[in-house]
């Protein structure tokens, strides 16, 4: 079975740019995996994501070297409509993604574009809106809903198209804390169902670290590190120097470990941290 994504020595240079945005990247993402991509701004994360989606090279001019394949076929040779069906993409700005006049129409839009038969439409809308908890908003116009809600509408619109790969590009950066939590919950649920290959680009690693199967650090157009989360966050200080902010709990226990006070695995979440701390403080051995 083909891996979901194969990036093979891929480089991309935007027009008028002095150097490539993405430089000689090689990466394979198996189907069904949850990949978290981290790194400083303008390091090439979005360029890579757009190359998987096909926005690069279809919508953006530039120079490509190497190949990006989705389910065995080269992205640059696929039609926009096929790409839309296979790869969903959610952008970071909730405003700019809401192009219709009501929520229902917004979800409908993609479905009609890819030619989903009428008999299936109602079911898909219902399913997608339930998963993203926006069923009660279907009739509302964009100016009546919040940014977080709009972002969930964007996710619903893309999910309704039933893609095999879903890319979320900084989905929570312009969303309030409550909305952030809801979106993280949706990602957790999607991961649980294991029917999608999920790729999330985020700065807010605290929320997503434990969900990911693998975390990738991209800096200056190259992959600096790629590993399952526990391994990835092994030395948080190095990560901080690379422009990434590891979960605070991981940082805390890494420092304790550096002082010789802790010897266990580095926790990634509140729960893991509380347990590790309790054990440590009750003297159950580090």
């Amino acid at each position, binding site marked *: 079975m083909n891996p979901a994504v194969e990036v093979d020595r891929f480089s991309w240079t935007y027009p008028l740019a002095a150097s490539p945005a993405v430089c000689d990247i090689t990466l394979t993402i198996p189907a069904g995996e949850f990949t978290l991509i981290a790194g400083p701004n303008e390091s090439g994360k979005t360029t890579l994501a757009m190359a998987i989606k096909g926005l690069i090279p279809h919508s953006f001019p530039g120079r490509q070297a190497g190949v990006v394949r989705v389910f065995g076929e080269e992205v640059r040779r696929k039609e926009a*409509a096929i790409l*839309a069906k296979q790869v969903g993409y959610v952008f970071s700005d909730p*405003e700019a993604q809401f*192009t219709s006049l*009501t929520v229902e129409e917004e979800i*409908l839009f993609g479905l009609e574009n890819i030619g989903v*038969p009428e008999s299936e439409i109602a079911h898909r809308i219902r399913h997608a809106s339930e998963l993203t908890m926006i069923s009660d908003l279907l009739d509302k116009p964009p100016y009546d809903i919040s940014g977080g809600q709009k972002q969930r509408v964007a996710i619903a619109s893309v999910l309704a*198209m039933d893609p095999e790969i879903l890319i979320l590009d900084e989905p929570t950066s312009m969303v309030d804390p409550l909305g952030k939590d809801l979106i993280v919950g949706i990602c957790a649920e999607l991961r649980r169902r294991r029917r999608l290959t999920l790729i999330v680009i985020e700065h807010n690693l605290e929320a997503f670290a434990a969900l990911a199967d693998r975390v990738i650090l991209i800096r200056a157009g190259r992959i600096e590190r790629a590993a399952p989360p526990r391994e990835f966050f092994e030395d948080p200080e190095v990560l901080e120097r690379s422009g990434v902010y590891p979960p605070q709990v991981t940082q805390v226990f890494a420092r304790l470990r550096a002082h010789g006070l802790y010897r266990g695995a580095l926790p990634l979440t509140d729960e893991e941290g509380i347990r590790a701390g309790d054990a440590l403080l009750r003297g159950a051995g580090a």
Partner: protein
Amino acid sequence: MVPVDSPFYRYHPVTRLALLVFLSVTPLFVDMPEINLGLILAALVLLRWGRVRMQQIRRYLPLLATVALFMFGVAFLAPGDRARLAPFRLAGLTFYFQPMWWAFVSYCRLVAMLFGAILYFSTNRERDTLVALRSLRIPFAVSYVAALSLRSAGMFMEDFRTIREAEQARGLDLESMSVGEKAKLYTMYTVPLFAVALRRADEISNALFARGYTLSGRPAGGGPRTDYLRRRYPVERRDWTLSAGLAAMFVVAIVLGKVMGVFSDQLSPLHGVALRAIGLR
């Protein structure tokens, strides 16, 4: 904006659009103020019947007052060739009958058109207009771009407000500026509005690509576009009757008005009344 429930919603959007055309375009062919005043009355009655909150109409009063001031003001200050006109005195000022009468006729016409539009936009959401356009077989791309423009306009209003605040935050005191200075300012808005527009256009086109949209609106794999929403607006018999009726009345009005001159302002009873009132008959 639109009432939660309204008898209007029982009618198909195309029918409601036909009402808009009738109420708002007929006045163009009608000079007789009584007819236009009648249309205004009809619009007001329909607004009540449609359960629109009359408070919303109050928003338009300043506009109506301003337009009246403007039109009558011009008629007063620039009546034209005074030698050919009939003067009369009121409150110590000299007015000229023909330009004032014509201002009155035009004003009635304008307000009639306005109320037709007010009625339409108070009883139709953007979605309804879209469905009406699509039912009239307007190409999807056209109606979609129209909808997108509406959506963008909404976004721009927000941005515009923010930009005004930003200007104020840089010491621009809009209140103490003259009209001329404020007019010059409008060019200043273009810089941030363009910046926002360009960036957003970029993002929107990416979003459209990600949803598989092609310019024609035709779905992948060929065939016609499903147009799911339109299914939800059934066309009843009353829609056919009403639309046909409105279309017929519209045609008749144009014929009577422009071709046969039945709605000429000279034939207006009010015209006679006004002339007698100022002693010119």
